C-alpha cells in the first residue's frame, strides 16, 4: 500500500497513514529499543505541530477522548470525594457487614462493615498518586540517563547503557519485593507511616521502570542528533546544551510522554500486585489494589466489594492506555525522520 502523501501527492500535512506507521514503531521502540534500528524507516511524512494541531488530531481519537472524560471523572471523584462523602474509612459497624450497595453505603460494605465508597475515594488518591509519581520517577531518571547516553560520544554512553541493561536483567518482581522489605522502615521513619510506604513504593516501582524510557530516549537522541536540523543548529554555533534543550529534547518528548502514560498504568497494576503479595500499603491504608486483595476471599457472597476497586483499576488503566494511544497518534512519533 502506498500512501498518497508519501508519494508527495499532497503538499499539506498529516499523511493519512503515517501515524499508524509511527505508532507501530513507537511501540516497538518502547518495548525493545534495540530492535528499533532494524525496523526500516518510513519515508518522511508531512505533519503539523503546535498544541492546536495535537489537540485536533487527539480529539479525532474517539476512545481517547472518552478516556479523558472517564479519567477526569475518576480524578475529580477521588479529589472531591471526601467533601461529598464525608464518611470515615475505618468506621467499623458489625451490624452492616458485607452489605451490597444501598443508599447508606452506595458501594456496599466490607467484612467489618466499613463503607467501601469512602475507602475507594481514599484509596484512589493513593493509587493514582502512586501511578503518577512512579511515572515521574521513571521518566525523570530515564530521561536523564537516556539523554546522557544519547549525547555522549565517549565512554559514558556505553557505560550507561550497560547499567541500563544490567537493571533490565535484574528480575523485577522479586527485586521489588526485596527492596520493599529492606527500605520500608528506614523511609517510614523519615516520611511517616503512609508517606514512607508511599515514597518507597513509588521509588521502587519507578526505580525499576526507568530503563525502557532510557533506552527509548537514547534511541531518539541517537537518531535526532544526526538530524539535519540539529546539525544545522550546530553549524550555527549552538552548544550541545542548547541543542539538547531546544532541539533534541522537545522532539524526543512525544514518545516519552506516550511511554509515560503506559508507565502510570503499569505502576497502578504493580501496586495492586504488591498488595496481593502482602507487601503493599498496610491493611489500614486502603488502596484500590489492597481493597481488591481484601475482597478476593469474599468474591462469591460480596462481589460488589471486588467489583468497585476492580472496575476502578480497570477503567483507570484502560483510559490511560487509550489516552496514550491517542497521544501517540496526535504527537506522531515519526514526526522527525
Amino acid at each position, binding site marked *: 500500500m502506498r500512501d498518497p502523501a508519501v508519494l508527495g501527492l499532497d503538499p499539506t500535512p498529516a499523511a493519512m497513514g503515517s501515524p499508524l506507521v509511527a505508532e507501530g514503531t513507537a511501540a516497538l521502540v518502547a518495548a525493545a529499543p534495540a530492535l528499533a534500528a532494524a525496523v526500516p524507516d518510513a519515508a518522511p511524512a508531512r505533519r503539523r505541530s503546535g498544541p492546536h494541531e495535537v489537540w485536533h488530531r487527539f480529539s479525532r481519537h474517539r476512545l481517547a477522548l472518552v478516556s479523558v472524560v472517564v479519567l477526569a471523572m475518576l480524578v475529580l471523584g477521588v479529589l472531591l470525594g471526601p467533601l461529598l462523602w464525608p464518611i470515615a474509612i475505618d468506621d467499623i459497624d458489625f451490624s452492616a457487614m458485607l452489605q451490597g450497595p444501598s443508599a447508606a453505603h452506595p458501594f456496599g460494605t466490607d467484612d*467489618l462493615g466499613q463503607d467501601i465508597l469512602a475507602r475507594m475515594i481514599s484509596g484512589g488518591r493513593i493509587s493514582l498518586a502512586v501511578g503518577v509519581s512512579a511515572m515521574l520517577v521513571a521518566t525523570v531518571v530515564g530521561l536523564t540517563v537516556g539523554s546522557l547516553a544519547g549525547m555522549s560520544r565517549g565512554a559514558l554512553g556505553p557505560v550507561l547503557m550497560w547499567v541500563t541493561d544490567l537493571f533490565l536483567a535484574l528480575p523485577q518482581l522479586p527485586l521489588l519485593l526485596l527492596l520493599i522489605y529492606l527500605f520500608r522502615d528506614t523511609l517510614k521513619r523519615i516520611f511517616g507511616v503512609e508517606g514512607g510506604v508511599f515514597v518507597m513504593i513509588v521509588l521502587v516501582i519507578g526505580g525499576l521502570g526507568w530503563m525502557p524510557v532510557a533506552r527509548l530516549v537514547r534511541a531518539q537522541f541517537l537518531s535526532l542528533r544526526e538530524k539535519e536540523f540539529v546539525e544545522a543548529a550546530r553549524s550555527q554555533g549552538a552548544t550541545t546544551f542548547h541543542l539538547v534543550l531546544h532541539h533534541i529534547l522537545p522532539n524526543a518528548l512525544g514518545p516519552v510522554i506516550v511511554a509515560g502514560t503506559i508507565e502510570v498504568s503499569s505502576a497502578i497494576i504493580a501496586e495492586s500486585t504488591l498488595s496481593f503479595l502482602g507487601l503493599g500499603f498496610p491493611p*489500614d491504608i486502603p488502596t484500590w489494589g489492597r481493597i481488591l486483595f481484601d475482597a478476593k*476471599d469474599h468474591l462469591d457472597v460480596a462481589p460488589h466489594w471486588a467489583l468497585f476497586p476492580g472496575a476502578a483499576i480497570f477503567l483507570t488503566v484502560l483510559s490511560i492506555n487509550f489516552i496514550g494511544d491517542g497521544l501517540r497518534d496526535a504527537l506522531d512519533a515519526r514526526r522527525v525522520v
Partner: protein
Amino acid sequence: MDEHDLRGLVADVKGGRLSRRGFVQRMVALGLTAPLAGMMLAHGGVARAEDVRATYKPTKAGGGGPLKLLFWQAPTLLNPHFAIGTKDQEACRIFYEPLAAWNNDGELQAVLAAEIPSAQNGAVAADGRSVVWKLKPGVKWQDGQPLTADDLVFNWQYARDPATAATTIGSYKDITVEKIDDLTIKVLFDKPTPFWADAFVSVPGCIIPRHLFADYTGAKSRDAPANLHPVGTGPYSFVEFRPGDTVRGERNTGYHLPNRPFFDTVELKGGGDAVSAARAVLQTGEYDYAYNLQVEDEILKRLEEGGKGRVDIVFGNYLEFLLLNATDPNTEVDGEKSSLKTKHFAFSDPAVRQAMNLLVDRKAIADYIYGRTGKASANSINGPERYVSPNTHFAFDIAKANKLLDDAGWAKGSDGVRAKDGKRMHFVYQSSTNAPRQKTQAIVKQAAAKAGIEIELKNIAASVFFSSDVANPDTYPHFYADMEEYAFNATQPDPTTWLLQYASWEAAQKSNKWQGRNISRWQNAEFDDLNRKAATELDPIKRAAMIIRMNDLAVADNVLPLIYRGSAAGLAKGLHAPRSGWDNDLWDIADWWKEA
C-alpha cells in the same frame, strides 16, 4: 484456686461427679494445659480415658485409595530433627513416629512405646530424676531393620550435638539416655523434673533410624541421603519428595499396628493460600484434608455449605494476646530502646493498663473475626471461682475506661487525645501481617479512639517480625512499639517454658541479643519466686496451683490475652481423622480412615 480446690476437683473426677473433659476444660480456662491436667489426673489415680484407637472401624489394612492432604504451606524438609515449622513436622509424621504422642485430651498415647511410664508402674522415678521407656517389640523400620534401644540412644546423641544444629536440641541437651536392654532405655535428668514427657515424645520425639544416619552426625548431618528420603516406622513409607511442593507415600505393609493404615497412598501437596485450600476440601472435594485454616470463620462457614466436607476445630494452647510494653520504646538508652532502665510513660500507670483491658472488645473480635476458631479469653483476672463461663472474665466498657483515665489525670486535649504531663496518649500498635490480626488492630484502634487514645497501627511481614535477626528492630522481641499482638502456640504441653515469658530474668534485651523470652519486660517478684519453685515441684497438683497463680499475676497486668485460638482443619466428608490440639494434626495418621 489453690492446691486444696484442685485436689477436690481431682477427687470429683475420680468419684465420677465430674467428667474428665469437664476437668480438663476448667484447667484450661485457668491457664493450664490439657496435658498438665491429664498428668494431674494420672497422679491422682484417675483411670485413663478411652483409647482413640477404639473408633477405628476398618478391618483390614489398605484398600482406602489415596489420601490427599493439602497444606497451604509446603514442607521443605523431612528430617524431624531439622523441622523448622509445623508444616515440616506434619510431613515428618507420615513417616516417623515418637514413643508416645499427646491426644486431644492431653493424655499420652503410646505409639512406639509398649506402655506409658507412670509412677504407678514404677517407670517414673519418685525423685523425678529418671524415667524408663519400654519399646514395643517387633517394630521394624520400613527397610526391614528392627527398631531397638540403640536407635533411641542414637537419636539422643544426634540431636544434642550442637554441630548437627537440630531444632529439637532443647529436648535432648539436658538429659542422658542409657540403654538398659534392646527394648528398654532410661532417661536421666540432672535435676528433679516434674515434666518428663518431652524427649522421645510427640513433635521432638520422632525417631530416626540409626543405621541410616549414624554416618551423618554433627557437621555431616546435612549430607545424609535419608534427609530427603525418609525411612521410618510410620504407617506410610516414602515414595517421593519435592521440597516446597509435594510429599508422597505409600502404605507401609509391615506397619506395627493391625489393620492399619487404611489408605493405599498418601499425598501431601503444598503451596497457595489458606482460603483456596479450604475451598479444595470443603467446596470442590478435590482434597481430603486441609491444614491450619487460618481463615475467618465467616468464610469457612460459607465454604462448608458446599457439603463436601466439614471444618474440624481442636483447641490446644494457642493464645492470641496483646502485650503492653513496660518499658519506653521511644527513649534510647545505651543503644537500645525499650530498655529495662526505662518506664513506659503510660503503661506504668495501672489505670491505663486497666483501661486498655476494658477497651479491647474481645467478644466482637471472637464473634466477628474468629467465630468457631477462637474463644474470647481473659484468663481470669478477677478471681479464681469464675471459670464456668468465659464471658464473665472480661468486659468491654468504654465508659468505664474513660472514667478510669479521667480519674487518673489523663485529660482530653483539644484534638480529643488524652495527655498528662505533656505526654499525649499516642501508642504504636504493631503485629505481623495477617488479616485477622489487622482487623483486631482496627477494632482496638476504634475503641481506643473513643476513649481519647490515639493508636498508630503498624504491621510487619511475619518473616521479619518473627525472625531472630539481631540487627532488625522490627522483630517482636525488640518490641520497639508501645503495644504488640501475636500468638503463641505452646507446642510443649508443659507450661514451664511458656511461663518463662513473664520471668524477670528472661526480659529480652540487647545484652541477651533479644533472645530473652519476656517480651513485655514485665517484672514481678512474686512471679519470679513461684516460677523458680515450680521448676522442681514434683507434685503435679501443687505445681498446678503455682502455675495458676503465676498466670493470674501476669495477665492482670501487661499481658492482655485476647483469643484462645483453635486450630481449624478441613476434612472431607466421611474422613475420620483424630486430631489433637496438643500435637501435630497428623499425630495419629495411622488411625485415619474414610467412610465409603
